[in-house]
């Protein structure tokens, strides 16, 4: 098994782990963390394609690598935006949850 195939399998496992955490963790920041795991798993699967582009005389394919670099930075920007939204939600509702039922308790009239 070559390193790139192994890394691809790691990426697949990371996507699975992240997906499980995203669904099963109730805490919004934990969900965000799990989502970042999915993201890095996808980058890894995408990146092993870079390892296979040796055809042109490179040790790697620079195009996917460059896109993974931009991807990591964009993923961070999205995480920062998500953190701001989560904090605002908690400040507005007093609750740390994404569960819509927490907002519309019977008797509160859905405010």
């Amino acid at each position: 098994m070559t390193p790139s195939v192994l890394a691809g399998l790691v990426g697949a496992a990371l996507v699975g782990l992240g997906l499980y955490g995203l669904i099963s963790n109730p805490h919004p920041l934990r969900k965000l963390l799990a989502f970042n795991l999915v993201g890095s798993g996808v980058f890894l699967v995408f990146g092993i394609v870079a390892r296979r582009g040796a055809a042109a005389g490179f040790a790697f394919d620079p195009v996917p690598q460059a896109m993974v670099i931009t991807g990591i930075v964009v993923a961070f920007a999205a995480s920062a935006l998500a953190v701001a939204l989560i904090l605002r939600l908690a400040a507005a509702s007093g609750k740390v949850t994404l569960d819509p039922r927490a907002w519309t308790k019977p008797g509160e009239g859905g405010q």
Partner: protein
Amino acid sequence: MSVLAALDLGLALLVVGVAAWTVSARNLFAAVVGYVAYGLLLALVWVRLYAPDVALTEAAVGGGVTGVLLVTAGKRLDALASAEIGAPPGRGLKIFAGALAALVAGALAWVVLTLPSTPPSLAPAAAEAASGPGAGLGNPITAVLISYRSFDTMLEKVVLILAVLGVWSVGADAAWGRAPAPLRKPEPDGAMILLAQVLAPVGLLIGLHIFWVGADAPGGAFQGGALLAAMGMVAMMARLMAPPRIDSRKLRLALVAGPAVFLVVGVAGLMLAGHLFAYPQNFAKPLILFIEAFMVVSIAVALPMLVSGPPDGGAK
């Protein structure tokens, strides 16, 4: 099994193990610490895939800066809410999530194992770009980022600005124009101040070095800018530096400098070299370094502003 293969296998198991621990850790802080360790280990995997540029970015942004973001967010959340966290999901949902995750991971693994042996590759086109308009760049990644896929890179900078705007707009209306809350509430420790005083100047130098060598060796605007951003955050944590007011003209100019210069040079390429984002032949390398210098500034400013969060009302 050779030594390197054994190392690879051990590294792979370690990455997956730390990731699993991050998902299952008891509290948020432990999970974030696990995530930072995971980011560093993942950087080692990228090194093994002959991707030192990606490894640098992953270690700096994916592990380091994201870790600071989440630790800060966790502290602010603790200070904010009565910490009523939604109920954990029932057994049925957990089993469903596990099955779904296993299915997706299995399908991906199958795809990885059955990839065609000679894949379609853009490497020749990129090589051409590296020897054409991006001439003189020894690092093909930088050539791709600034020359071959220049439009992507420019728009990605715009995404960073949009994210900063999004974070700012989440703040209370009354707080608009003020500075974000400082990264640490209590008085900083002496050790933190010493660390910032010793580390920040050295880190500044290394960040600039990484940007400068990026044209020919692993490194570049992203990695150097992220390092400068990290040094800024260390200085903020030691309270040697306060987050700037968001209506400061200097801050806003620094934020848009990268994409603005990139766009101006790109449009100038339309007139001088024939098409958008084309660089005149003998002049490509200095132009690319010029663009990258402004991109470093924008990244170094945007990342700490994203971590600092929306402007603070200060009325609490």
